[in-house]
């Protein structure tokens, strides 16, 4: 596939019943780009986690606010931006969850960012308190995931 740039955009009310639509949207684009099923699953889950955080934490389950998802396809690279205008937070205060501690405190949630960082190649969180948050996630299509175009055409 030649180097080309493509942008996809989804603006959707911040409701948990839209998570399935968001996952389908992201998965279809990732499949089109040529990611294997395993990576598509990872991308889908990472975006679900980012959007779940927006719905539950940034917007406190207030569905009147939109979640904005932009997917940028560059050569061998998928960049996903999840943007909200909800409550900001201090990303430097995030710590890797101690699972035993979570269990002891019966805390639910808070595992999403940890998962996102494990599932994607790059994760960057920008938060402006009072203005909103943006999660930028990148997945590269370079690790032998898809057959190179020459090999696919040669037989």
């Amino acid at each position, binding site marked *: 596939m030649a180097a080309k740039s493509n942008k996809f955009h989804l603006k959707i009310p911040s409701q*948990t019943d839209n*998570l399935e639509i968001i996952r389908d949207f992201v998965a279809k684009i990732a499949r089109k780009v040529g990611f294997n099923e395993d990576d598509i699953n990872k991308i889908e889950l990472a975006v679900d986690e980012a959007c*779940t955080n927006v719905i*539950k934490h940034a917007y406190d389950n207030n569905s009147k606010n939109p979640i904005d998802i932009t997917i940028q396809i560059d050569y061998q690279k998928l960049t996903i931006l999840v943007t909200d205008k909800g409550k900001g937070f201090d990303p430097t205060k995030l710590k890797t969850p101690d699972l035993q501690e979570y*269990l002891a405190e019966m805390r639910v949630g808070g595992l999403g960012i940890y998962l996102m960082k494990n599932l994607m190649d790059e994760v960057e969180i920008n938060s402006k308190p009072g203005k909103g948050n943006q999660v930028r996630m990148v997945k590269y299509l370079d690790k032998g995931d898809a057959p190179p175009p020459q090999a696919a055409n040669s037989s």
Partner: protein
Amino acid sequence: MDGFEVQRKISNDVVILNLKGYLDAHTAPQLEKALQTCIDQKEYKIIINFENLSYISSAGLGVFMGFIEEIRQHGGDLKFSNMNPKIFRVFDLLGFPNLFEIFDDERDALNKFNSK
């Protein structure tokens, strides 16, 4: 994928919850309800069978975290079975295999409960 469903069956004193479909922040309350029903009925030996579950996010895993302490305090346990690799990976990434017993097959989980 089409919604989420919890099917419940009982084998002696063990409750088996079969999960079907996708388990995310939208459907997690359904699982919460099913587990709360077990607790309310003092059923503390529970197996979750994941065979027909196609998707899970941390919201789903959070439900298990929310109940496990109470279940173990009553001498019971939550055991997991029949996870496909996609589902297992999410549990594995979050360190759940250290916190919960995961069996290949529902029968193995049942045997473990019955052997005590």
